[in-house]
Every structure is written in structure tokens, then in C-alpha cells.
């Protein structure tokens, strides 16, 4: 287990804290709301209610991550966030299409929801339009994905943060600063097996010691891409859920767990791991668990 020499930032968004030394702040889960067609938000609301209750019991926050695929779904999703997500809970938006990104940001501003928004995410594909749109409609927090197609090792990931690796004119950290966002989360960009999938985990303590910023990734993506697991159907989900402990074990602060349905299973696993880490961190490094930490809630 780790403790970092560099001061570790703790950011707050709507009362949810993220970051800090291992064993200090409960690990945060980002749970995706995806849909193949029109978003089924009535079902989502029931699931979310159940997950928020479980999250309250255990202490690990769950942030709903809204994936908006088509323009015609923008209003449906944003209205749902406005009316149905409790005001004390932040949310993130995960959009690939540049046109939709801009429209969503504009609508979030109109609805006065930007203070609860985590923008998931900027990467080396950021365009001038996206940059300007973010500048004009500033979300409270942003995730930077350190994906470097040239070099999938930790050094390559650091390079895109520092100087853009010749893929952007500036490093992604500077770009976020130029937008004017200080609350930055770093995503170490988990890639498929065969593409140095382990580098996403190894990069966590490196990023934390280098920048002191909250760090995590979507290790779930690696499990999803592990096609050989299809031959072990009974184990696939167990591997998916438990893979998330790699992030906490390496000092990370957040995990992007895939679909919301996973949260019910991942929450107790992460709470258990947080307790394990906290016991050691307090004894050897004097790190006190925050008041909502699962160790305080469950022991």
C-alpha cells in the first residue's frame, strides 16, 4: 500500500469529495447510464435510487455518468438530471460526438447545472470548437484521459499531459488550465489486453506523485476487451466487479465501473478494499479516514 510525498488535492463537487492520500477519502465510483435506443430513464431512476441508498450505507459515492448518443436525447437526459437526480449528487456526461458535446454544455448552462457537472472527458482529440465551448460553458470538474496512441506506457501517458506529444499544441493539463478549470481528475486510459493494459494501473501512483491530482481509470474496459473470458461465463462478471480494486490498491481515487448495474456489486468490493487500505494507512502513515469513509461506517 502506498502513501505519497506530494501533497494530494481533495476536490469537492456538490459535497462529494474526491482525491487525497490512500485511505483518506472513500473511492468514488462512476456508473454509466447507457442505452441502445431511447434512454429508459424510468428504469434508470429506480436503479439509481437503490444504488444511492447502498452508497449512503457504505460511504463510497456513486456518480451517474450519462452517455448521450444522439442529439434527440439531449433534452430527455438533461431534463431527467434536472428533475430526478438529487440536488446533492453531481453527475458526469460522457459524449463522443463533438456537435452533441457543444449542445449539451450550452443546455447545462441554461439549466444552471454546470456546477454539478463533471465533463468526461478531454483527450488529445480535443478540437478548437470543444475548447471554446468548454470555455464559454465551464463545468465544475473535468476528466483528462491520458491516452497517447504513440506510446501506451506510463511515459507516453505523462507526455500527453505535459506537452501533448505533438498530437495537440499544448499539454492537456495546460489546456484544462486555459479553459479555466482547476478541478482536474486524471484518467490513466485503460487499454485492451495486448496494448499494455497494466500501464493504466501502474500509472496511478506515478500520476499521483507527479501531480497530486485525483487519479483513476476504467479498468472495466480491459475486462470487457478480454474476449477469452467469454469461455468462463460464470467468472466474467466476478472478474469485472473485482478488477476495480486494482485502482484503490495502487492509490487511485476513482473508478469508472461500466454500466450502473455493476454498482450494486462493485460498491461492497470497493468499500471492503478501502477499509483494508485505511487500516494500514492510519497505522503506518497516520492518515485518518474521512467521516464518510466505509471504515467509519462499517467498523
Amino acid at each position, binding site marked *: 500500500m*502506498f502513501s505519497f510525498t506530494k501533497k494530494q488535492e481533495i476536490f469537492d463537487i456538490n459535497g462529494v469529495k474526491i482525491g487525497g492520500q490512500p485511505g483518506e477519502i472513500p473511492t468514488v465510483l462512476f456508473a454509466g447510464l447507457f442505452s441502445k435506443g431511447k434512454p429508459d430513464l424510468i428504469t434508470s431512476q429506480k436503479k439509481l435510487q437503490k444504488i444511492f441508498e447502498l452508497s449512503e450505507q457504505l460511504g463510497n459515492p456513486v456518480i451517474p455518468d450519462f452517455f448521450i448518443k444522439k442529439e434527440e436525447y439531449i433534452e430527455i437526459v438533461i431534463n431527467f438530471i434536472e428533475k430526478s437526480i438529487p440536488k446533492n449528487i453531481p453527475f458526469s456526461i460522457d459524449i*463522443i460526438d463533438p456537435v452533441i458535446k457543444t449542445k449539451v454544455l450550452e443546455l447545462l448552462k441554461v439549466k444552471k447545472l454546470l456546477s454539478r457537472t463533471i465533463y468526461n472527458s478531454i483527450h488529445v482529440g480535443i478540437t478548437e470548437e470543444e475548447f471554446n465551448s468548454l470555455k464559454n460553458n465551464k463545468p465544475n470538474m473535468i476528466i483528462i484521459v491520458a491516452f497517447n496512441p504513440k506510446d501506451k*506506457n506510463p511515459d507516453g501517458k505523462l507526455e500527453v499531459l505535459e506537452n501533448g506529444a505533438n498530437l495537440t499544441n499544448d499539454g492537456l493539463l495546460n489546456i484544462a488550465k486555459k479553459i479555466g478549470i482547476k478541478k482536474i481528475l486524471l484518467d490513466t486510459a485503460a487499454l485492451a489486453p495486448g496494448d499494455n493494459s497494466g500501464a493504466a494501473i501502474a500509472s496511478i*501512483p506515478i500520476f499521483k506523485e507527479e501531480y497530486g491530482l485525483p487519479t483513476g481509470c476504467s479498468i472495466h474496459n480491459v475486462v470487457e476487451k478480454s*474476449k477469452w473470458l467469454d469461455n468462463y461465463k460464470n467468472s466474467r462478471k466476478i472478474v469485472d466487479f473485482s478488477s476495480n480494486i486494482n485502482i484503490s490498491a495502487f492509490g487511485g481515487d476513482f473508478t469508472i465501473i461500466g454500466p450502473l448495474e455493476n454498482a450494486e456489486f462493485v460498491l461492497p468490493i470497493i468499500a471492503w478494499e478501502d477499509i483494508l487500505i485505511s487500516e494500514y494507512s492510519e497505522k503506518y502513515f497516520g492518515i485518518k479516514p474521512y467521516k464518510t469513509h466505509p471504515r467509519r461506517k462499517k467498523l
Partner: protein
Amino acid sequence: MTTEYYPWGGEFVSVSPENNLAVVVLNLNYIPNKKIAIYGSLKTENIGIEKIVANIISNPNIRYLLICGEEIRGHKSGESLIALHKYGIDNENKIINAPGAIPYIENLKKEAINRFRDQIEILDFINITDPKKLDIIIDKYAFKTFKSYGKPYIAIKFKTEKKLKIDDKRALHSKIKINYMGKVEKRGE
């Protein structure tokens, strides 16, 4: 899946390597019902395309690459693959005129890309999602007479790993060191 024909692996099914047609399926649950050479999905406009190129040139029998299904929003992987075939890459390794967000080919030599551009003909059926229509289209190309391109081209991945001399065996990375309790420090400080 990695077979002797397709050393780079990826999300594909190798059906009949002696056939001439490869099918890339975008955002669609479709299984071609004919004995084509290979079919599989494509998601990203960088690593995904690299794998397709490397795998295809390793099987010289493949002369047609059919792209079908619903284009992937933002990534525009199908159109980026077509752009790679049409225009190649620039000096920054960016696919020329590709509409995707991060269309970089970083792990293949230009020679491999040129071979891909020369070896295959692209059949652009992006936005065709009806399986019946696709079956008819595939029928048309799967048994076309063709000539093998010749020898396989086995693309070697560029190695970016750096060789480091690290005396401290507990180190995770050259930038940090970790003491026996788990305290992380920057190396050299």
C-alpha cells in the same frame, strides 16, 4: 483471437483464410453467413485501425475489405479507415482527411500502410445495417475470382518501451521510488 494468419489479434472471427473478403462491422450485431476470410468489429480510429491493417496484410488472399454498419459517432472509425486507404498518413502519422477524433497510426511502418492500400479494395457500405441487404452484398463479392497478393506481410509493432537501469528493485517506474512501507517519493529528491 489470434490465428497464424492474423498475428495482431483483435475482436474478429477467422472463417476461411483462403477467401478474398474481409468484413468490418461497425456498431452492429451482424454475423456474415458466408465463408468469407474474416469478419470483426471496429471501434477506435487509431488502435482498432492499426490491428485491421496489420491483420489484413498478413493474409495476402484478402483483396476486398467491406465496411458496413452504423458509423461510430465521434470516432468515425469507418470513414477514418477509408481515409487511410485513400490518402495514407502525413508526417505526424495522422490519417490524412480522417474525420475521427484521434486518427493516428503510430505502430505501423509507412511500408505496411502502403502495402494495405495496394493490396485491398475498399467496399464502402457504411450505414447499411439490414442483415438481408448485407448478405446479398457479401454474396456478390465473397466468391469473386481473385488473385492472391503474393507473400504475407508480417507487420512488426514498433517498440516504445525504454530500457532503464534501475537499481532499486522496488521501483514501479523511473520517476518514483517506494520504500519498504509503501511511501512513494520522486526519484532523485
